């Protein structure tokens, strides 16, 4: 059995100054990461030739990069644990350390049970060998014994849905088939602790749902799963706890909704900074063209407008030229009263006030409604409804009303209003999550929209 094979590796494996400790005790902790640091060397130029290394004593020049900085956390048995963070934050490095592919520079990792890592599907497949041969080799690499593979072979093939092609060399497989075979092998290794890195997006919809079933099955059987993903949906659906990694440090750890929201606002913050930075660049360009005395006439106001967004960072999540400004947005009930919540099925108006600073021809007024996870629930504008708005002059104050019936499942939703130019690509003003709507709903349902199913059950025969 796999357990045996991995148990036989037990004992303390000491690497220069770090340790992995396998224990088979009855601890409730599956993976205990204790003050792990990992330094990568970033080399400048190519490796030195042997000649240079020996004759000239030339050393490689490199910079050190702290990929993980004193990270500690525990994953409990039977827990599904998510790791999120921007690119380069150290997520994959962390997973590779737990999988022992990398060795930490300091700290230790205690692992209770056998580990299998789904870091890349079909790693080590050999193109010239058949699916059958590759299953045996890949499963052996993942730590399975020949006996076990024999026993599970049919199951692996069935799961991959490649029965007809199993004796075809994998070089003739499509990439989807390749991935499916890889996933089927990996999932049948049946470890105590499963590490998953962005590999759930495999194959078509049907296969994906099969993959999720396997993951859920794993969870039900009380296995420990650690998932690294950019897909926040998946993370929030699967995970009991989530760690948000930033620049090699744990920024936050705990409840998925809380941590994911924190991560989302961080991403939005980054995006805003990027836009401000971009606009600064554009301003510089304009100034430059002014200084260089090009014959391009530039409206003096344009420079002001471009700088508007970055005023002390006070206006959050807002971008656009400023030719029009969204002054206010309200949720109004059918009696004309401002409210901040409504019930399922209520008729409400979303009202926004827009002030024009310049003449704008045929602006597009739009709203976008998102749920707490940032999924777009609904979005519309006057153009999509074939309503022309006409031309507005400087100083015009405009009220735009979106009359809605709220058919959402209970929860919190956010409205982002926008005023766009008629080119549909650029904006006068866009404000993220300017309005919050709390929807109260007593029906038992899941998802976003309530389609109000009527359920009837009939017996056809007995």
């Amino acid at each position, binding site marked *: 059995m796999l357990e045996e*094979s991995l148990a*036989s*590796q037990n*004992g303390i*494996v000491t*690497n*220069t100054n770090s340790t992995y400790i396998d224990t088979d005790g009855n601890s409730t902790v599956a993976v205990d990461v204790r003050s792990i640091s990992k330094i*990568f*060397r970033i080399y400048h130029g190519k*490796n*030195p*030739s*042997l*000649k240079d*290394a020996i004759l000239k004593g030339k050393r490689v020049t490199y910079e050190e990069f702290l990929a993980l900085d004193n990270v500690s956390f525990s994953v409990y048995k039977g827990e599904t644990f998510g790791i999120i963070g921007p690119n380069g934050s150290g997520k994959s490095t962390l997973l*590779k350390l737990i*999988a*022992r*592919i*990398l*060795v930490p520079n300091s700290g230790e990792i205690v692992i209770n049970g056998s*580990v299998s*890592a789904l*870091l*890349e599907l079909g*790693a*080590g497949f*050999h193109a*010239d*060998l058949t699916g059958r*041969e590759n299953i*045996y*080799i890949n499963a*052996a*690499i*993942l*730590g399975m*014994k*020949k006996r076990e593979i024999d026993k599970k072979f049919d199951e692996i093939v069935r799961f991959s849905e490649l029965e007809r092609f199993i004796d075809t*060399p994998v070089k003739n497989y499509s990439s989807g088939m390749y991935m499916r075979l890889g996933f089927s092998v990996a999932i049948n290794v049946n470890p105590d602790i499963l590490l998953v890195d962005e590999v759930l997006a495999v194959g078509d919809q049907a296969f994906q749902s099969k993959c999720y079933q396997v993951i859920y099955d794993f969870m039900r059987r009380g296995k420990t799963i650690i998932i690294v993903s950019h897909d926040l949906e998946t993370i929030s659906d699967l995970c009991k706890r989530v760690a948000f990694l930033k620049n090699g440090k744990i920024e936050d750890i705990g409840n998925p909704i809380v941590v994911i929201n924190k991560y989302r606002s961080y991403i939005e913050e980054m995006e805003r900074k990027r836009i401000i930075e971009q606009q600064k660049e554009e301003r510089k360009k304009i100034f430059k063209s002014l200084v260089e005395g090009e014959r391009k006439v530039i409206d003096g106001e344009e420079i002001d407008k471009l700088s508007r967004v970055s005023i002390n960072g006070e206006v959050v999540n807002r971008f656009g030229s400023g030719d029009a400004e969204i002054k206010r947005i309200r949720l109004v009930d059918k009696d004309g009263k401002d409210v901040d919540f409504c019930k399922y099925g209520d008729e409400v108006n979303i009202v926004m006030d827009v002030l024009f600073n310049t003449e704008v021809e045929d602006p597009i007024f739009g709203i976008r409604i998102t749920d707490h996870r940032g999924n777009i629930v609904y979005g519309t504008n006057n153009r999509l409804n074939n309503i022309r708005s006409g031309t507005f002059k400087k100083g015009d104050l405009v009220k735009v009303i979106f009359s809605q019936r709220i058919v959402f499942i209970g929860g919190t939703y956010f409205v982002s209003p926008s005023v766009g130019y008629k080119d549909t690509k650029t904006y006068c003003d866009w404000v993220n999550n300017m309005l919050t709507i709390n929807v109260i709903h007593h029906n038992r349902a899941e998802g976003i929209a309530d389609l109000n199913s009527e359920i009837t059950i009939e017996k056809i025969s007995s």
Partner: protein
Amino acid sequence: MISNFKKLFSYHELLFSLTRKELKVKYRGSALGFFWSLLNPILVMLVYSFVFSIVMRLGIKHYAIFLISVLLPFNFLSNSVNYGANSIVANGNLINKIYFPREIIPLSIVLANLTNFFFELIALFIVLGIMGYKFYIYLHILPLVILVQFFLVSGVTLVVSSLTVFFRDLQHLIGIIMMIWFFGTPVIYPLSMVPEKFQFIMKANPMTVFSIFYRNIFYYVNYPEELQFPTLKVILMAVVVSLFVFFLGYFVFKKLEPRFTEEI
């Protein structure tokens, strides 16, 4: 070291499975498949026989047998080292994604070449049998010689495969080094042709000692007056050097192993 060996043993199925893969991949897609293992030495034998018994005339009876009896074991060394040198780098995708003791990769190449060597020996036995050689007289020594050579070959392959990760130039240098080793070992010429004063230096090379054994077992067995086994001292030295190279190779490999992932 002992815990490393234990761990390696727990992965023995993977080692064998990768060895089988090596062999399968080698012959996959070629029409004659594994018969190349048998055909190759015969063709090489024909070429060398032509050169050394017709063109250069060394005056050695049955030169083909004289040569092939040492060429096959030497090929076991040189093929292992040549293929093994690049093995860690070439399997980078595996090393980057899955954990297992990395020495399995070069060792599987050594084992695949060893298996190949066995097939070639079978072909050799058939040829010897047809020619009426009494190759079975000293055959009981053969397993021991192969075992000691296996340690030497593994050691060299381990060192070379791990160093190549850090010095990629090595893979180009290996060809030359192996050629020097080839000519420094009595493969195409008999040891007796070497001037007396160089003979001791040559015997420090364990491959020389193995050559003497292989040649005695397969060739000189037919010319008993030429049979000359090395002294115990020389044999011991070959064994000690081979084992030393093996443990050194393993030690170097394990020392460098933690950095493989980052260097590939």
